[in-house]
């Protein structure tokens, strides 16, 4: 059973993960890998040079800004939730999408629970490794739970104030 859920165009699907997560002291096998931020800074260029896709796993306290210039070369940024209550990765995801224009995969890893699905999707996550064994259909339902949102985020949902403006013609 694949444990990665991918969210694309409003659909959630289970998918096999083609990336191998490497520990810092582990030799890189053939194929695509995800490495720590420290290892990426040290070896990212070499790993990429070997003809593979490289992803970076960023811990909750690490500065996402340090990746800004490398983002075009990065396939996946995996943001860690050490506990579901630790919400730092939401800010990191929004910065990746909205400030740095990252178009690759932003993956939620760690204590990733179904209850967090709507928040994660709104902040720009598009891949999830659920820690609670939940299924893609549950994630899709959770993402659709609320018909409206009040604020812009990294998804393209129109906030309430924009819908209201569209509904009420403004005299000029």
């Amino acid at each position, binding site marked *: 059973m694949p444990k990665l859920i991918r969210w694309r165009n409003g659909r959630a699907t289970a998918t096999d993960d083609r990336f191998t997560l490497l520990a810092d002291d582990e030799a890189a096998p053939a194929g695509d890998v995800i490495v720590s931020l420290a290892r990426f800074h040290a070896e990212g260029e070499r790993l990429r040079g070997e003809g593979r896709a490289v992803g970076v796993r960023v811990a909750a306290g690490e500065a996402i800004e340090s990746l800004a210039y490398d983002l075009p070369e990065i396939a996946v940024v995996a943001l860690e939730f050490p506990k*579901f209550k630790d919400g730092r990765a939401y*800010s990191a995801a929004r910065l990746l999408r909205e400030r740095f224009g990252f178009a690759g995969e932003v993956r939620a890893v760690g204590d990733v629970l179904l*209850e967090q699905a709507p928040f994660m999707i*709104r902040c720009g996550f598009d891949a999830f490794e659920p820690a609670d064994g939940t299924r893609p259909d549950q994630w899709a339902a959770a993402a659709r739970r609320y*018909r409206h949102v*009040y604020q*812009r*985020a990294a998804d393209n949902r129109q906030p309430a104030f924009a*819908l*209201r403006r569209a509904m009420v013609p403004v005299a000029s």
Partner: protein
Amino acid sequence: MYLYDDIDQAMLADRVAEFRAQCARRLAGEITEEQFKPVRLMNGLYLQLHAYMLRVAIPYGTLDSAKLRKLAHVARTYDRGYGHFTTRTNLQLHWIKLKDAPDILDDLATVGLHAIQTSGNCIRNLTADPHAGATADEVDDPRIWAEAVRQWSTFHPEFSFLPRKFKIAVTGAPVDRAAIRIYDIGLRLGRDAAGALAFEVRAGGGLGRTPYLGPVIRRELPARHLLSYLQAILRVFNRHGRRDNLWKARIKVLVANLGAEEFARQVEEEWDKTDKAAVDLPDTELARIRGQFQSRGFQTLPARSAAFDAARAADPAFARFARRNVLPHKVAGHALVNISLKAPGETPGDASSEQMDVVADLAERYSLDEVRVTYEQNLLLPHVKLDDVPAVWAELSQVGLATANIGLVSDIIACPGLDYCALANARAIPIAQAIARRFAEPETAERVGELKIKISGCINACGHHHVGHIGILGVDKKGEEFYQLSLGGSGEDDASLGQILGPALSADRVAPAVDQMVDVYLAERREGERFIDTFRRTGLAPFKEAVYAEAD
């Protein structure tokens, strides 16, 4: 009064539907209490000492008759016929059954009430100046901006898992009636040199274990950029606030550790990079919200009312009520009428369903259908004609709501304490009742004048004891309830944190000690001095001596 449109209502309906499904899973045993806890907390449902407690949000303390009647109904139907108004201007129902919670939320939603973000590490229900829209000293109505923040902060995808809870208070007047210095963010609306609306922004205030008064981090923020600036503050806090220690996780610790200047610099740096237009409300939306807060129906009246003056002359009790509880309105011939929830012997902040219904009726008939909740745990009718004040007073008197003690020694803030709360070390309510009984005689209380007593049952300081003229903190000494007294605190424009008087006292000694300190004040006071003024001149010594002399 802001009325929810289809979008606002859909948000509430979706929320209740979600919670109903979650409750069903819990009641069926499909999820454990441990898994359910974060879910119920997101809906304001706490598990307390004896039962579930539901904390209903009253956004910026503003109610109309329909909302207040609904609260009365819910308290009567699902609880024991009363509710507790808190210092965050919410209403707590302390005897709730889990199976009823979704029905209660459905009921509340019919009038645009909810329990969203009344708990959890998110942006909580905002508080605002209870005099908003009624006071002559106001630069702009803070409710407009509070409603803008309410919407922006509701289910905020980035800021729903902050290091710790986050409380915002906002005022639109130079006089602070919203305690803006003791919250995570305090906002005061004014005008900049060019005459445009601008916020003075404070951050990092808070009470609890390590109290701080919030420093100003930006003097003049153009009002239209409020939301993008808040996003910048919250983002700095979300990323850099401490998460390793519950007691150091509030933004006050981050601001104190960085220093206000460095914190402000980081916020400005983040804000400079922010796409402000994507976050800030368009003028059309601000205008839409503003339009909903226009109070309509004021009559053109003379500044004085013969009926009001005659009632004052005829009845000393009404005259006292007029002196203590009635304040001038920005519209001639109108008044703000405070309703004290501090009748001596009663639980501070509690109101019965019957009382809520009476206040709702009075609001509908006499106050342009508006009621406010104050952070001092009282209610207020903001738009009463002076001509009608005697009738309002008479009806309030019928249900024990005409206590003329606003700002006096018996107008005590108290948290629910160990009578209800699982966190408390000691009871707060009986202490408040004992003190209020000593000053139950209205002449005595009035002779003492303004004296703000604030009682917390534990160091979390929900009763604001740090900023009481007299602060009382419940502590646990080997299983016994003791009380630490402090003097000289204030949460308003003359804000200061209280100084500890001396060793903690046993429960039976607290009210007598207050009495002794009042005696010191009455003996020492100079012309025009309030209790706190005398204390600031004399210092702790005479008060300490009076309280501890016989014990030594």
